[in-house]
């Protein structure tokens, strides 16, 4: 990051290459659309590039990246009214070539359960499992206390379990 700030182009390119896949995954899950993910991820890096010389390391750079990405996703979501229920159909259907019928069913059930979570709960699940962020990074990205992150994650897991395996 320091090299990128001092104008070393290859350093910024390295930052992009290091984080682009996780941002793309998080954007795709957040929006329910792989098609929009590259544009939003690109806009995120462009915003960060525009603010490079003023960036102050107040926390994890990853959390900062995800905060900017989440803002982009919110704006896109508001503009396009992308429905996450679209995930239930074709976008993230399990591979039809899966040889084990029961495994495919489990994935499909879990996909649908994820879609039924509230946005608040789904955000923490996506950041944790797609982005691989730790609790502190998630707290920083969402601007909530760490305790809130842990509680939301626990609630999300309990809710998913309840949906997937109702008693």
């Amino acid at each position, binding site marked *: 990051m320091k090299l990128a700030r001092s104008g070393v182009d290859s350093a910024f390119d390295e930052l992009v290459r290091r984080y682009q896949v996780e941002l793309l995954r998080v954007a795709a899950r957040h929006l329910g659309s792989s098609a929009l993910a590259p544009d939003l991820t*690109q806009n995120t890096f462009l915003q960060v590039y525009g603010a490079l010389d003023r960036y102050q390391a107040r926390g994890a750079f990853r959390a900062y990246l995800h905060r900017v990405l989440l803002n982009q996703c919110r704006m896109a979501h508001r503009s396009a009214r992308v429905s996450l229920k679209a995930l239930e159909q074709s976008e993230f259907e399990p591979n039809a070539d899966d040889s084990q019928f029961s495994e495919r069913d489990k994935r499909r059930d879990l996909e649908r359960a994820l879609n039924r979570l509230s946005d608040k709960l789904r955000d923490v699940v996506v950041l944790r499992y797609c982005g691989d962020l730790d609790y502190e990074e998630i707290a920083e990205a969402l601007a909530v206390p760490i305790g809130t992150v842990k509680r939301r994650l626990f609630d999300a897991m309990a809710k998913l379990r309840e949906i997937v395996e109702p008693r």
Partner: protein
Amino acid sequence: MAAHLEGDLGALDAQLFELLNTDHQFDDVDLVPSIRARIRERRAAQVRPCESVIERWMRRPVAALFATGLVAAAVCLGIALKPRGHAADEYRSKSAGETLNPARWAGVHAYRVHAGKSEPLAESLARGDGLLFSYTNLGGAPLQNLMIFAVDSNHEVHWFHPAYEREGENPSSIVIDRDAAQTPLAELIQDEYPTGALSIHALFSNRPLHVLEVEAWLKDDPRVRLEEKEPGSVEQVLTTRVER
């Protein structure tokens, strides 16, 4: 029961990881070339802002009097010019009555979108109109973050940038470019406003501010000058009316 739950959650954790962390569809994507291309386009466009302001001015008769480099010099030094017919969108780098600060020249332009056409926002907008914004962030000490929101005649806050749609969120200011002149914020804002006064606030700041903290300031004192709450920030207020 607790052990059973823990076991279940452990299995679920593994399933979620397998589902969400092993998505390989983006493994071969490389955004660096397209990002570099956009950066080059922006750098090329940054030569033009002063020229485009001059071009706009040259269409007005009064501007012919300033057809030397005077306008260009004024723009570059950060002296605010108030074009006629655009009373609602003025630049203000400090509170009224204070000397303009040439180190910072920050402001937004607002446009209403009506029947598919956009025009600068003036004294009124119709209830179904959309809003578009562009921002300018020039000077030797540009600010880094921006929020734009409106307060309607019922004192309700409508958040434009950042987007704030879900209860429980606390989004923060959007990051903005330095050396930006009339950089558009691409999103068309469509919202429902009651008829009556609508004040649109643009708040430029050094640190990212959060929606809930700004709303708390407004709740404490609806007439508060937000730049007094946040050192070094710049607030611009555009007032208009929502008509039927």
